[in-house]
């Protein structure tokens, strides 16, 4: 049973087994003392095998990568996509209901450091529609 990660995910190195060891990579990060540290991750696209594959699909972190996993998951592609988008929002800290709708619609990709939105592929279209609505109300 196999599943492929949608996004890079943090890895708890204290729980890594010999089978998972080859999948781990390191990226730059910072700890709570402000020191630069190497942070263990599983890169996007990493393929997991075994029961963990099904677990990752159920949380929305991964998609089935073989028929066995897809059969065990027993979800439609649309349901898998909904789980993926939900998980992405949770990982990005998008908890506001209105912002979650904007993310689902492709209007935003998340937040900048100054609290402004990171524009998504539908940002321009949404702004034009918003402006037209404002003008119509005047």
């Amino acid at each position: 049973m196999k599943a492929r990660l949608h996004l890079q995910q943090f890895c708890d190195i204290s729980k890594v087994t010999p089978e998972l060891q080859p999948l781990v990579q390191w990226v730059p990060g910072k700890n709570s003392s402000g020191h630069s540290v190497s942070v263990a991750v599983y890169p996007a696209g990493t393929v997991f095998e075994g029961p963990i594959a099904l677990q990752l699909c159920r949380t929305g972190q991964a998609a089935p990568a073989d028929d066995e996993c897809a059969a065990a998951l027993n979800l439609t592609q649309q349901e898998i996509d909904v789980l993926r988008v939900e998980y992405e929002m949770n990982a990005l800290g998008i908890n506001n209901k209105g912002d979650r709708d904007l993310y689902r619609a492709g209007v935003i990709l998340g937040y900048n450091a100054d609290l402004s939105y990171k524009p998504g592929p539908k940002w321009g279209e949404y702004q034009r529609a918003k402006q037209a609505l404002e003008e119509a109300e005047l």
Partner: protein
Amino acid sequence: MPNKVPSKGTALLMEITSVYTAFPQISSLNIAGEKAETVDTTTLDGGAAKTKNNTGYVDNATISGECLYDPDDTVQIAFIAKVRAAGTNNFKVTYADATPTNEIYSGLGMGFDRTASPGDMLRGSFTIETTGAVT
């Protein structure tokens, strides 16, 4: 120079089978109680001002927060299973600063309360005691 870092984007992640998994739909997160322990060292022959010293130990933080509760959510189910098994689990908190700060807590003594009330969504509140050093 200090920056104004938004709360938006802060995430709590729970380790499940070595993969840190975002805890869903959190509306507030509180990490409190980390404090260097002190002891009163005032003596009978001392001055008027009482004295204190560090013991060298540090009280651990407790992580708590509120979320929208979804009884079907895989991560919340996994968390509640840990509560009922009185298990331990690692948790990671990531902030929305430029080079995201990562804090890893060893969690235990977990709890999860649910609230259902008219005119509101199902809500949950969680607590996680921590042990050992934050890394």
